[in-house]
């Protein structure tokens, strides 16, 4: 049986998002050209929440967008069932914008590599920042986050489970040991 321990409960989750939002405001010096690009699926939920928090802090509405990186994955050559596609909805023009990629968990870095390749096909952002709720280590590519909610190094038999209210009915980050 896998065992679960809580890394962030609902209140810690909320505090982490508030802190991330204020870091976004700080790092992006005013939010005029900002777009928060959530990676499907929980990254999209987090980007929506962060946009509201940034608006509260900074007073201006912030644009959000959705990115599904499936078609840019580097393991599509392998045989097997094709991953299910989710919606991609990016602004028509990314040229000169400040893009903050938002995802729930950063691990190997392969998703972010795919995301940057895909964004480059939509335009030429002025700057791309990476914001993740959990950095679980284990990078296989030279990719580092700019804004992090919580760091938790994981062993090979450990997983990070992020739950968000919109999808899972609760806000939590859990460390799962001995999972399948």
């Amino acid at each position, binding site marked *: 049986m896998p065992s679960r321990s809580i890394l962030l409960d609902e209140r810690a989750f909320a505090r982490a998002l508030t802190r991330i939002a204020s870091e976004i405001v700080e790092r992006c010096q005013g939010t005029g050209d900002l777009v928060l690009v959530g990676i499907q699926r929980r990254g999209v939920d987090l980007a929506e929440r962060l946009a509201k928090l940034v608006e509260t802090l900074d007073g201006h509405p912030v644009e959000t967008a959705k990115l*599904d990186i499936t078609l840019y994955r580097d*393991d599509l*050559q*392998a*045989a*097997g069932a094709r*991953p*299910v*596609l989710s919606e991609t909805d990016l602004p028509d023009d990314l040229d000169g914008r400040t893009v903050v990629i938002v995802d729930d968990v950063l691990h190997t870095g392969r998703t972010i590599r795919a995301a940057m390749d895909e964004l480059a096909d939509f*335009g030429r952002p002025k700057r791309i920042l990476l914001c993740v709720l959990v950095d679980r280590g284990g990078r296989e590519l030279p990719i580092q986050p700019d804004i992090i909610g919580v760091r938790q190094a994981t062993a090979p038999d450990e997983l990070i489970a992020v739950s968000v209210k919109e999808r899972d009915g609760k806000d939590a980050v859990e460390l799962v040991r001995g999972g399948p």
Partner: protein
Amino acid sequence: MTAPTLGKDLIGLESLSAEQIQLILDTAERFKEVSERPIKKVPALRGKTIVNLFFEASTRTRISFEFAEKRLSADTVNVASAGSSISKGETLVDTARNLEAMRIDMVVIRHGSSGSAEFLAKRIRSNVINAGDGKHEHPTQALLDMLTLRDRFGKIEGLKVAICGDVLHSRVARSNIWGLKKLGAEVAVTGPASLLPRDIEQLGVKVFPRIEDAMQWADALNVLRLQLERMTGGFIPSLREYNRVFGVTRERLEKSGRDLVILHPGPINRGVEIDSDVADGPHSVILPQVTNGVAVRMAVLYLLAGGAPDWQHSGGSE
């Protein structure tokens, strides 16, 4: 719950489950957006080589497949029967095996003989996609028809679709009947008795001898092209008479008082099975069908590139 897969080939809709058809339509829904991007291309099929093997004339289907392949970053080769060794008498299997020896991954085949796609699929390792085999099936056409209907009506289930005209020679009709019924639509056919297959009711479709009655019953009409090239004569008295009795004309449409959605797989015989002012009018979804065709073919290529259903899921990365 595991996601459904398509297996190695797409031969027809008769052999697919409702879940598999739904998977293709849902995947196609996502691929629509790729054709609206500033760079209309994604790297999903990078390194795959696809041969479009067309033994029969085709413009729309061949170009649509080619766009779909290129937008997925596959490398493509077009082989038409004229000007190739097929015209020197090489057999279908020999042609395909020679292509396979050049290390291809997928074959899209259009052929005049019913069953040719399945025949080929059983003999080569590459994925085979049927782009129309004789009077048998044309699965991607029916899928794009269904996607267009779903766009218009929100769902296929409970929809009433009348297939009009030359059902006898039509692989489009057969694929539509299989696909629509599996997704819970009601299907009828209408046309001159000489162009309706005998015992068509056994496929579970209604038959309306008069198109006016079909128009009263249906939510959508799929108007088939009169396949003059497949007719050896004697099926209809004249094109003018066909238009007078079975043509989808503005007068007939207005008289029906129904807000029908009109599909046509193209190419249109204007003034024969459909009048210009209907084909170009507000009821027609003929051009949206063409747009959806690319998305549907991208979905099929993407899903088949995974291979056989018993292969393992490729696993995620974070």
